[in-house]
């Protein structure tokens, strides 16, 4: 392990210095840019997905979970060997990672944590909208959200008329009937219902040539890629991958954590396939509620932890890199003596991403989406303007 905190700070000073200059930026506003968020539920183990190389503390604490044949990314970090599609993106400068990052939540409950990763807030269940929904509202992207999930995730709430797609095999009732219901909803001031009925009536994806569609994430991602590619299609898509809560039998390369990572990896691949060249104008990010303990538990699994990692993909990332302010894994460097610390508020990454994709000033997002919380503008370091 060669990385240290001091190294990082030295490296970033240049960027900080340059950031003071106001370079003229030719914003390419006529391009339709897309943002995709993949929610990794259950607590994604950043140290399993992107392990640190040659760290004795790590190897000691995880005897049975150390992966063989990892893919080396740089001198400090490796990649889980099953993340082949992501690695492919990485090699083409289309994949990057932010490490030792998390939302500012340290209590280790899935439900509170997942609520906060979606709302972006501090007190569980106190905010009823998602940070992505609020960002879209700010960017006036009504009707531009697509969830590949059932039901609608909290993350997208805050702006009306989002769509979700998780195909049913049956035919919709005739249009007159849908119109009648819509007018009844409107008459009764049921605006949410009326909005939904409007989306349903206009639905193109349902009539998929009569063939039934799979609900696998890989297949949904292909479909989503095709929709995002359309100039009048959605601009935001949200996926969910479950199963990261591996308290037992987390295993090595073929363990249960790998299964969920592979599912995430399949989304990258299918999105790329569906998007075609538009992958260049797309940014994909992952989101999880917390990482996992460094130490393996009695059942060869891991417990709920704190710091994790974010996977990023697409042409809007600046370059292939593991961006981190690495806190170290010695006991005193760990959060509460047990977890990888989080040195980057992951909301800084999400705010910067929205600023880049939605072409909105970072400060406005910071203020109106995240209540003026202290966040770093990472746009220049992580993304193309």
């Amino acid at each position, binding site marked *: 392990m060669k990385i240290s905190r001091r190294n990082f700070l030295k490296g970033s000073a240049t960027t900080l210095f340059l950031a003071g200059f106001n370079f003229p930026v030719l914003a390419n506003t006529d391009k339709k840019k897309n943002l995709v968020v993949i929610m990794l*539920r259950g607590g994604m183990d950043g140290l399993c997905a992107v392990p640190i190389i040659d760290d004795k503390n790590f190897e000691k604490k995880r005897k049975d979970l150390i992966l063989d044949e990892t893919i080396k990314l740089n001198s400090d970090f490796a990649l889980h060997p099953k993340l082949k599609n992501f690695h492919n993106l990485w090699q083409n400068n289309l994949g990057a990672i932010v490490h030792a990052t998390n939302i500012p939540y340290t*209590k*280790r*409950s*899935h*439900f*509170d944590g997942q609520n906060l990763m979606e709302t972006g807030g501090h007190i*569980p269940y106190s905010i*009823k909208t998602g940070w992505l929904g609020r960002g879209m509202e700010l960017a006036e992207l009504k009707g531009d959200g697509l*969830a590949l999930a*059932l*039901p*609608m995730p*909290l993350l997208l*709430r805050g702006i009306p008329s*989002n*769509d*979700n*797609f*998780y195909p*049913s095999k*049956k*035919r*919709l*009732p*005739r249009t*007159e*009937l*849908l119109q*009648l*219901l819509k007018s*009844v*909803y409107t008459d*009764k001031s*049921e605006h*949410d*219902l009326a909005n*939904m*009925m409007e*989306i*349903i009536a206009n*639905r193109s994806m*349902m009539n998929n040539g009569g063939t039934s569609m799979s609900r696998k994430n890989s297949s949904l991602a292909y479909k989503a890629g095709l929709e995002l590619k359309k100039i009048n299609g959605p601009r935001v898509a949200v996926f969910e991958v*479950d199963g990261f809560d591996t*308290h*037992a039998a987390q295993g090595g390369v073929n363990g249960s954590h790998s299964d969920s990572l592979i599912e995430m990896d399949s989304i990258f691949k299918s999105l790329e396939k569906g998007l075609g060249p538009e992958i260049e104008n797309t940014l994909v990010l992952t989101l999880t509620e917390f990482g996992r303990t460094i*130490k*393996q*538990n*009695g*059942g060869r*699994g891991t*417990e*709920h932890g704190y710091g994790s990692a974010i996977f990023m993909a697409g042409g809007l990332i600046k370059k292939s890199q593991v961006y981190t302010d690495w806190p170290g894994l010695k006991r005193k460097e760990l959060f*509460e003596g047990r977890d990888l610390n989080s040195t980057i508020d992951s909301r800084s990454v999400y705010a910067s991403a929205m600023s880049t994709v939605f072409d909105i000033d970072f400060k406005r997002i910071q203020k109106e989406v995240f209540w003026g919380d202290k966040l770093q503008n990472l746009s220049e370091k992580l993304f193309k303007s």
Partner: protein
Amino acid sequence: MKNFYRKVAFGLGPDEKVSSDPLEWAKNQLNDIPEFSWKGKILPEKELRNYYRDYVYGDRKVLRKKFKNDKDGYKREKNKLRHETGQKFWWNLELCIRYSEALKSETPVLAKLWYFWGNHFAISEKDFLAQYTTGAYQREIIRANMSQNFEKMAQEATIGWSMIHHLDNDQNVGPKSQEAKWAKEKGKTKGVNENHARELLELHTVSPDCGYTQEDVIQMAYIMSGWRPEWGKKRLETGDVHFNPDAHEPGTKIVLGKKYKRGRKSLSVAITDLVNHPSCRKFIAMKLCRYLITDNPTNEMMEPIIKAWEKSDGFLPEVHKAAIEVAFNYSDKYNKFQNPENWLLQMSKMADVDLIPSPAFMDLYKLGNKPIRDQRALEYLMDELGQHPYLAKQPNGWSDISEDWMSPELLIRRLVYAREAYYRKSGKSQTPEFYEEMIEKNYDNSGEILKILNQHRELVHKHVILFNLPETLKS
């Protein structure tokens, strides 16, 4: 007022009359736990767990070894094993039992609360619990205790085999226990698994509102260490839950400021303290109001339920009656967006949809065979509607928040399956007169509704519209 029948139950079916005292009608259903109205086979949890055992043992210990180098042979034999142990059948039978309580029993109010408690002490999607034992757990531990104190339900659910397995307490070993020492001698580490302890506090009893800390969670996990299925070479993880002192953390533990001595009894003593904590009754009262009345219950709504709890020491029939009375008092003021399962049952009851296969038909099933499609209809349907009751995504169960159920895709399912349901009705309920009478009986604004429906000629369309009107979606 008529929506009260839909709020606390599933509306009124064709043979039921509007009661002169709806509140009494509802409360009278809550005193005892009657026999199941399902007249077909009902298997004990233990027997179903044995099928689970046969499946995991057969797969893990026999087939994986035998077909180490033959992927296709393995696949084929595993499918056979699935059918030999009824993996595709039992949960469909459980759904028949479950829905008969809503549609065919004299106690639909009890059924609606049964679903609440099953979801409160949820067994979410994990391994093959849903296919074999979750339904039985909900019958034997949840429903059977609805005439008891909350404490008894909490005690039994906590050490129920399903819950222990679901929340990994079989992995929870005290780090200073004998077993951890033995493991250390072999160069292995065994330690605490907090999962179950955390959910016991957070989801089942006091909720984060009571202000417990991470240390409380760990201490609670120490108290719970050692509670796990009795391991056997043939039983694997499906043995009865017992207390294994070798895996129990020694020493005194402190949870929420209270001390607990080491040993078997400490868990039950700790649960007694948790259920008697003021945060627990407040949390349950809030959840009941949220389920029955509104996403954002007020203190005024919760108060009578908390009082009833305090007066009766958490005696569930009294708690339930108080909740139903609050729902009655707020019946006209608040409408609650119904989750897919409750919506389906409402439609089935009011419109006389033939939802549940007959007991005779289900009992035709023979172990070893693949169940026929119609025997699996309920499993498919619930999945399509987006709420299979045994497949909640997380230990906090299915959401009680309206917005979580409002999305285009979910609304599409209601449109599509309302139509499907119409064709599963008997001819005598496919008449305009039937609908007029049913609407008159179940809605306060029947005139207005009939006017809307009359814009469409065909009865099937009227049916689809009716069950997607705001008046139906929200009760």
